[in-house]
């Protein structure tokens, strides 16, 4: 058995059904071996999107996403995708080909020190130097990627190792990592303290982050919040923890979030941060969340606790396991008046949008779109103004909301939507701007080739809208590098790929058009011509 066969066998042992990738000489042995299996291979059009697609796949399927690229430029092209996954703690195994191990370090054709280059964006990386290490390393890589705080793991495999003969293939049943033992169970004493504080509190609130979704604790969070009647706000990565119409859900916090969500957090006397980093976009002044309130910080990564703010009660562990332990406790509390207050804030919230009546309002498009989408559909927002509209106006029913939250990588939506569709088979909608669309529009070919139905919405305002907005406010409208005058004709572009195309350019008949756009399970592009001067809020 060759090393390449062993690599493929490892993927089978891990139950991998799909890999996203791009070939090159240094990874050819692997792509040769994989043809003997029924693992689906999706050929992307640039390596970065293989990582994004694997990320979308991982986020909806709950399994590890796998992407494969060749050495040198193939590997370096992956880096932005790897960094995006790292920032959002998405479990990936990224496999790269490498030049022959005897040539390592000699700057031969298509050699890049990818383990070195990706070091700060991976949870761990391997450069395989002995073919017999393949089973152990793959086992460890999948284990590390999917446990504790999840994240990408890189495996770099020189060509001669792929072509070498493995003496005996035995996939390990267990990992034996002396140095990696993530905490799963929360400390019992700390959990007791949580309930002590909860029984004392008058105005508790939960701020849920992406960690809740990653640990598969969505349902448990809902149960917990409903049992005690605790209101919930979320970070951007936490959107989708509760359906938007849940009586205890009060929106996204942060400078791009809902004002009543921020107010709720500010006025609380007990804040439970769960699976959230206290990141700058969600909480711009970390010291304020410990003022006049008790802060309880629950996270699987001890490094996040105390990084931006020191909590009164730190609680390290897997969120699902912690919610399970919460069930051992029972307290009698009544927060109804607090929830009523928050409902008053929410009801009196006025959307003050300054809209040009000649154009369709993107907020309305997002809202209508999410109303018309399937109950369990996946909504993938890109980065830019479209992300702000999506966060604020998308209505989560029972589906997923995916976006590049930590890294803010433009071009994420289309490849991630592709991966998500392959990963779950449900309806998937990618919402992007004209800027972000053009960062990934080469993937239309992938979508066509592999018949992956993705609904793509493009907000076309001819600008890099969010940067323009920033320049508007901070640089007295001295716009620089934000005009997208070279934009293609999207109708012709869609036609070139033989993809159905629709356009919304008027404020009327939005719902009707969206229904038409969503009516079948086929790829389609919906271009929305919006006011170039429309702001995100």
């Amino acid at each position, binding site marked *: 058995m060759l090393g390449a066969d062993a690599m493929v066998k490892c993927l089978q042992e891990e139950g991998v059904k799909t890999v996203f990738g791009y070939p090159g000489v240094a990874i050819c042995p692997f792509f040769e071996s994989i043809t003997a299996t029924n693992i689906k291979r999706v050929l992307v059009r640039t390596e970065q999107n293989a990582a994004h697609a694997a990320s979308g796949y991982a986020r909806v399927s709950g399994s590890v996403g796998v992407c494969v690229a060749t050495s040198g430029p193939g590997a370096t092209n992956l880096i932005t995708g790897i960094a995006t996954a790292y920032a959002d703690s998405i479990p990936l195994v990224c496999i790269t080909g490498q030049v022959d191990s005897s040539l390592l370090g000699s700057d031969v054709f298509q050699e890049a020190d990818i*383990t070195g280059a990706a*070091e700060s964006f991976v*949870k761990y990386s391997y450069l395989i130097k002995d073919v017999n290490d393949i089973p152990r390393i793959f086992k460890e890589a999948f284990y590390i990627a999917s446990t504790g705080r999840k994240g990408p793991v890189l495996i770099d495999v020189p060509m001669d190792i792929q072509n070498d003969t493995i003496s005996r293939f035995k996939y390990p049943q267990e990992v034996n990592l*002396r140095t*990696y033992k993530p905490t799963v169970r929360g400390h019992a004493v700390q959990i007791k303290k949580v309930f002590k504080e909860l029984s004392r509190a008058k105005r508790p609130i939960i701020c849920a982050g992406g960690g809740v979704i990653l640990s598969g604790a969505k349902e448990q969070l809902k149960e917990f919040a409903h049992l005690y009647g605790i209101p919930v706000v979320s970070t951007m990565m936490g959107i989708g923890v509760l359906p938007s119409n849940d009586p205890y859900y009060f929106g996204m916090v942060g400078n791009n979030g809902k004002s009543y969500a921020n107010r709720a957090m500010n006025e609380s006397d007990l804040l439970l941060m769960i699976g959230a980093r206290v990141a700058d976009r969600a909480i711009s002044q970390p010291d304020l969340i410990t003022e006049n309130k008790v802060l309880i910080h629950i996270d699987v990564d*001890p*490094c996040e606790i*105390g990084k931006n703010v*020191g909590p009164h009660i730190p609680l390290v562990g897997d969120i699902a396991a912690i919610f399970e332990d919460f069930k051992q406790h029972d307290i009698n509390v009544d927060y109804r008046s607090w929830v009523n207050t928050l409902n008053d804030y929410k009801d009196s919230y006025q959307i003050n949008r300054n809209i040009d009546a000649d154009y369709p309002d993107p907020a309305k498009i997002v809202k209508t779109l999410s109303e018309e989408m399937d109950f369990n559909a996946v909504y993938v927002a890109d980065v830019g103004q479209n992300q702000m509209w999506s966060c604020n106006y998308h209505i989560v029913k029972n589906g997923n909301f995916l976006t590049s939250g930590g890294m803010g990588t433009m071009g994420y939506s289309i490849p991630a939507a592709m991966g998500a569709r392959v990963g779950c088979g449900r309806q998937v909608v990618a919402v992007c701007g004209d800027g972000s669309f053009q960062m990934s529009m080469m993937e239309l070919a992938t979508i066509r080739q592999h018949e992956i139905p993705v609904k793509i919405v493009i907000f076309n305002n001819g600008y890099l809208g969010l940067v323009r907005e920033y320049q508007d406010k901070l640089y007295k409208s001295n716009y620089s590098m934000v005009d997208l005058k070279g934009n293609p004709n999207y109708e012709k572009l869609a036609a070139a790929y033989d993809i159905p195309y629709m356009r919304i350019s008027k404020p009327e008949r939005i719902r009707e058009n969206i229904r038409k756009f969503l009516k079948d399970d086929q790829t389609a592009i919906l271009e929305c011509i919006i006011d170039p001067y429309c702001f995100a809020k």
Partner: protein
Amino acid sequence: MKNAMQKKVFQIIVDNTSGVLSRISGLFSRRGYNIESITAGTTADPRFTRITIVACGDLDILDQIEKQVSKLIDVRNVRELVPEDSVFRELIMIKVAASAEQRPGIIAVSDIFRAKIVDVAPDSLMIELTGNQTKIEAFLKLLDGYEILEIARTGIAGLSRGSDNVLYFD
């Protein structure tokens, strides 16, 4: 004073994997932590390397350093070596310009500090001294009057006192 700058000595036991030192030093550089010195060498158990890092920062930063280093997959154990319960040593080599007349003075000072003269050239001396940092600083101060040509320092190595804190790994 929570925000006052402090110095801490961390003893880090890591798996002897390739690239482990660059993972540790990379973590320090990308997160902007200050390293005053770093030393590394295998332990009694050849599977592991002991890295001794002297880092400085306020208490929050030092706390983060300890957590972030612990989080690295290759790291087996991180521990602060507290000065009261530890022994620190550093080795320094100093090349001093010395004429025949200056030599006896330098040798006398070296003797007091139990430093060794390890090389003699017609116009210079090389001195080797091992000790804790205070001793080394004091010795350097006494050499102030001479022309120092080159200095090489190893950085701090340290162990905790007694047998209670010895780490055994299976």
